[in-house]
């Protein structure tokens, strides 16, 4: 843990600014950004070299990040395996690169479900609850964590019913059939539709998968920034002012917020 903390500290932006000899105020007030053409901060980024050597020292994990960073929400291995398999079908590994599992997306979801996202702390959750029109949006009393818990259970019930096996043990094509039932609202979540809808679970499953694939590695997904690399998104770059007027496509090595992978 101590090592991880050190690593994070080493690449924090604050430290970067210190090492380049300018405090934030200095950059903003000074000539660096004063003119119409500023300086590309990346060209003086010292962190990339250090990062390489650090990776070698620690043995160099292929995809970066921690293969098993631990779980905060899923305390049942089978549940975690079920949701991992479902996420992999949403964003599968292919010749372009890793899928949800290798990207660490299930661990991203795990941390999200344990916090504000899972507990709907920023959403209006006051009663009474009524089933609304689709244009009125989500109207269930279930938090996202509760909906995922029900959804995982229902994934297994549906696949037991249709294929006599748990979701994580059926064929890819069969998994897709099950997921499609959720997407279309045809699956049984085990509670009345007025209380919670399978398509809402599917919507969260899909969006969380994409979020985990492409969020900063800070959130435990997008391992090795492989999600960004597939998409050619350079992540956290200080500025593009030196390239913004170039007509040709620029391939830029991605950078995460705190130097994490």
């Amino acid at each position, binding site marked *: 843990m101590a090592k991880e903390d050190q690593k994070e500290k080493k690449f924090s932006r604050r430290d970067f600014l210190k090492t380049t000899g300018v405090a934030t105020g200095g950059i903003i007030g000074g000539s660096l950004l004063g003119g119409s053409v500023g300086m590309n901060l990346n060209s003086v980024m010292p962190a990339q070299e250090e990062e390489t050597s650090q990776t070698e020292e620690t043995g160099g994990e292929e995809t970066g990040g921690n293969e098993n960073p631990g779980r905060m929400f899923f305390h049942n291995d089978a549940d975690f395996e079920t949701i991992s398999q479902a996420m992999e079908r949403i964003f599968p590994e292919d010749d372009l690169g890793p899928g949800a599992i290798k990207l660490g997306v299930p661990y991203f979801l795990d941390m999200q479900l344990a916090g504000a996202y899972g507990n709907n702390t920023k959403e209006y959750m*006051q009663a009474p609850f009524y089933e609304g029109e689709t244009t*009125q949006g989500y*109207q269930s009393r279930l938090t996202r964590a509760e909906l995922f818990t029900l959804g995982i259970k229902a994934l297994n019930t549906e696949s037991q019913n249709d294929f006599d096996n748990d979701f994580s043990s059926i064929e890819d094509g069969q998994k897709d059939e099950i997921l499609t039932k959720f997407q279309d609202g045809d699956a049984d979540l085990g509670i009345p539709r007025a209380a919670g809808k399978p398509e809402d679970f599917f919507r969260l499953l899909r969006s969380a998968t994409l*979020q985990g694939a492409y969020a900063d590695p800070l959130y435990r997904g997008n391992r090795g920034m492989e999600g960004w690399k597939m998409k050619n998104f350079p992540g956290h770059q200080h500025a593009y002012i030196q390239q913004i007027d170039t007509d040709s496509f620029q391939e830029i090595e991605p950078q995460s917020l*705190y130097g994490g992978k």
Partner: protein
Amino acid sequence: MVTELDKVDVVTVGVGWTGGIIAAEAAKAGLNVMGLERGHERGTEDYQNVHDEYKYAIRYELMQNMSKETITFRNTRDQRALPMREMGSFLLGDNLGGAGTHWNGQTWRFLPYDFEIRSMTEEKYGEEKLKDDEGYRIQNWGITYDELEPYFDKFEKTAGISGEPNPLGGDRSDDYPTPPMIKTRSLKMFEEAANSMGYSPIMMPSANLSEAYENPDGQSIQACQYCAFCERFGCEYGAKSSPEVTVIPAARETGNFEVRPHSNVVEVMKDEDDDSKVTGVRFIDTQTGEEFFQPADVVVLTSYLFNNYKLLRVSEIGEQYDPETEEGTLGRNYCYQIFGGAVGFFDEQFNTFMGAGALGMAFDDFNGDNYDHSDLDFLHGGNMAITQTGARPIATNTTREGTPSWGAEFKKESIENYTRTLRVQAQCATLPHKNNYLDLDEEYTDAYDIPLVQLTYNFTDQDRSVQKYTIDRAAEVMEEMGANEIKKDTVVEDYDIVPYQSTHNTGGTVMGDDPEKSVVNNYLQHWDRDNLFVVGAGNFAHNGGYNPTATVGALAYRCAEGVIEYAEDNRRLE
């Protein structure tokens, strides 16, 4: 127990663009101003790790906490209004600077046609064209573009806007204070196509500044670094004009202005002895729970339009609009926005991940009444634009028609198209209809036990027609730009509160020259209460084909003039 504070000359409810402008102008004029801000303090120094799409863009770090307050919504009166439980269609800002912190910075002046839409339409096409009989309630704003022009100029100079003249916009008394931003490959393709089709493209007026600038108040705004994190983010460089880097410090430097954060105003207090006056506001300190009364000679409501409306309504100031009888004015003319666009697929890869919130080109050949509507079944139109605001990977997953929304094919397509698609779209006006309005909800309340605002809204035939028309025009531009394949937008049916569309909500507290059809006069002074002003996009009698902030800023400067005049001689302004 309510603690009474020392009286101030002016109190603003909310400190974003409008509150900041009122505060700066009034404080410079020697008035003592208190800004009550229900969120917390913040500024450039708080955005040092802001390049985080998940935290800011997806989880809405800078937005209102919906667990405390939201609105309820229904498409039509025969439905039960239900709370907007998650943020979606629009993003309610929060904290010092409000939505002026997380905006993109596209800073257009509404057209001369917008302010006199009823009389100009009637004169050119006849009264029938206004479709009063179909429930449309198109009205003039009680102010003309020419009257508002000096205030537009003032706002642009405060914000340092980077731009170039628009041959199809209103007359200008001066150039933009800073030159346009840098033109990118995709912008040049759009410009070339638009020129060859006979349109008049210009660089979009931008609050992400092309060069460092010192405004007339002596405040510095830095040069944009094109980092591509504007909308939904704060600017770590102080290069996006926002209240925290312009009007708020200008107000503070006078020594006459104080911001009181964590202060949620719950009521405007009416003068019990004089029914033409208010005495101040009652607020709750959100950290301690204490209640205060802030007496003031002038009260200015400067929060987002839903809250401006709500405070008037719960304070029982003015008469609520009734869609049956069409009596009352508070809540009427709520409008939104609709987009007509097309996506083009290319072999070439573009630097879509670079950009700035207001980096774009646009033309107004299909906006306002810049084109003939004689044979069209709608009025108005929209500003047709291409922007390079910085595509981010979680939110940008463009696929061809018929592609599944998940799985292998989706993954391949969305990755491939991330840098290979461009979009052209018109940001269309929506016009008021008698069935679209704000009210107070009878069932749901906020964290202070005050009813939520209830929105009844649906798109109209007018909206769908203007959308359909502009989709086709956008697709033509895309074709001219050389796209291999074009995906046109689908014409919407019912307004849906779920997907993000636009934070350009307007109306509810509209301005005008007729107290029977408006809430405030053209100084944004309340018709019933002389020392109460209400300013913001809620004053718009309809929504135009542009982003609203320049017009909001101009109205705030107009309002500030009214506040200062009123403070001098305590009379109605005309």
